[in-house]
């Protein structure tokens, strides 16, 4: 049920990157949810100009988020994602085409994307353009985790248009700017989230379905810079501004520091701060049923800020290769995110109310994300 937008993250238009295979493990725990992920990726150059990459990812979700907690139903689900990419380099241009498919019991998503990356002006400037088209099929499991009963509710279509320019400023400094416009149309609301409204019942509120507009357009602009410190380290800073037709404005600030030690270790630390306001039609508690045409009580659309602290260590256990492997590394990455909501309340006790509606404490929680992966270069 999570929008699976394929991200063509970084490209270099001068030479195709080295062959590489990764085996990846991830664990997210927070807000009552535990998600374990396993993945394998491999990329290889078929010729000097032509490379292919394939990825398989499986996510296992167990637990229940606070929204589901309030309706006392536990979730257990599995998501399988497969993707394939081909890259073609001709002179100073890299062309990329990808296809990704994501399947869950109650959500199916297919994305096709194309990207182009061009080096120019003495290879100091790289211009990139990309387009992705995603078709989603949205359903709802009306049964239980072990005895499912999925009803298909509708479809949605997402189109993402991106452009980016990366510029080498000095021999120590590279900067970039990205712009991405994304439009969605169709059934956009998460069927498992409910809104609540005051209704004079014993509990004080009744539940209803979210109603989202049928279209949504967002624009995000990110500026970033990376600087090489004289003693061999790198510092990155980025800022992203986001705005959309739901009225959400989000600001992201992040700083990263990378410190290698000889040819064996790379240590990295990051701090990220994110703040957003709520969507115009969002409310934690509506005054009465039918008070608005569009309604939402999804955490994603609530006013929130979150702070991330992360650390990453990469150790090269094969720094100079072995047989046909050029290099082998193992990486551990740990992040901790503190989420604070300004207008989303923590409704844990379904049934006997501990607080009068609207007076529950504001929701806050910590999430821990752990990743471990082994990368072999060949």
């Amino acid at each position, binding site marked *: 049920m999570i929008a699976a937008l394929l991200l063509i993250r970084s490209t270099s238009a001068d*030479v195709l990157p*080295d062959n590489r295979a990764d085996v990846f493990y991830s664990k997210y725990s927070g807000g009552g949810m535990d998600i374990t992920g396993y993945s394998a990726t491999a990329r290889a150059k078929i010729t*000097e*100009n032509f490379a292919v990459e394939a990825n398989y990812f499986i996510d296992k979700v167990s637990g229940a988020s606070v929204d589901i907690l309030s309706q006392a139903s536990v979730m257990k689900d599995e998501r399988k994602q497969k993707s394939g990419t081909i890259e073609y380099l001709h*002179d*100073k241009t890299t062309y990329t085409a990808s296809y990704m498919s994501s399947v869950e019991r109650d959500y199916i998503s297919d994305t096709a994307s194309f990207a182009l990356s061009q080096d*120019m002006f*003495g290879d100091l400037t790289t211009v990139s353009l990309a387009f992705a088209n995603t078709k989603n099929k949205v359903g709802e499991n009306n049964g239980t985790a072990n005895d499912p009963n999925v009803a298909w509710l509708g479809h949605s279509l997402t189109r993402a248009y991106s452009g980016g320019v990366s510029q080498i400023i000095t021999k120590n400094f590279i900067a970039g700017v990205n712009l991405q416009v994304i439009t969605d149309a169709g059934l956009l609301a998460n069927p498992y989230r409910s809104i609540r409204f005051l209704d004079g019942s014993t509990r004080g509120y009744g539940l209803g379905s979210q109603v989202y507009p049928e279209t949504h357009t967002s624009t995000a602009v990110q500026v970033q810079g990376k600087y090489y410190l004289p003693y061999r380290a790198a510092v990155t800073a980025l800022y992203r501004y986001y705005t959309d037709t739901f009225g959400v404005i989000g600001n992201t600030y992040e700083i990263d520091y990378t410190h290698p030690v000889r040819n064996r270790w790379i240590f990295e630390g990051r701090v990220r701060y994110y703040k957003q306001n709520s969507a115009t039609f969002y409310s934690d508690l509506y005054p009465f049923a039918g008070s608005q045409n569009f309604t939402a009580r999804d955490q994603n659309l609530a006013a929130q800020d979150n702070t991330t602290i992360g650390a990453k260590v990469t150790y090269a256990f094969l720094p*100079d290769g072995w047989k046909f492997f050029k290099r082998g590394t193992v990486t551990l990455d740990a992040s901790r995110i503190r989420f604070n909501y300004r207008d989303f309340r923590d409704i844990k006790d379904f049934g006997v109310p501990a607080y009068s509606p609207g007076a529950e404490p504001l929701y806050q929680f910590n999430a821990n994300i752990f990743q471990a992966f082994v990368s072999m270069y060949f």
Partner: protein
Amino acid sequence: MPSTSTFIKRCAMAAIVVASTAFAAGGDASGPAPAFTLTSLAGQPSGLNAYKGQVVMVNFWATWCGPCQQEMPLLDQMYKKYKPAGFTLIGVNVDKEAPAVKQLLERKPVSFPVLLDPANQVSKAYHVDEMPSSVIIDRKGQIRYIHRGYKPGDENDYQDRIRQLIRE
């Protein structure tokens, strides 16, 4: 002063010309090859003068450049093959620090002379605008051909040019 539209037209054409020549991997070039003296890893000075009368290929490379590493073994083979016919290959390394160069050459040795240009004076003199770059100089000391970048198969191009110049 040209009008704005002429200026834009000229710049657009210049950009296209610059862009298309930048894409060409190799081009005929001319002019005397700038003389230089650099030190080898062992600390011995050497330069273009030491190879007067021979066909010389000056190859600019760095330890951090992938395609440079790729072509090194092929350059070595080419050097051994044509050396008896009066050909020399000089590898000019542009790394800022020597230890990485020493380490690399210990692991993957080459038989042609390698000279160090950490101050990049020779790279500037030869107007190096791509990594790697190979400059082919004839017996009279004139630059005849510049090959920019490296893609597998380019070594055939090098060999054709070298054979041509050896026969002159």
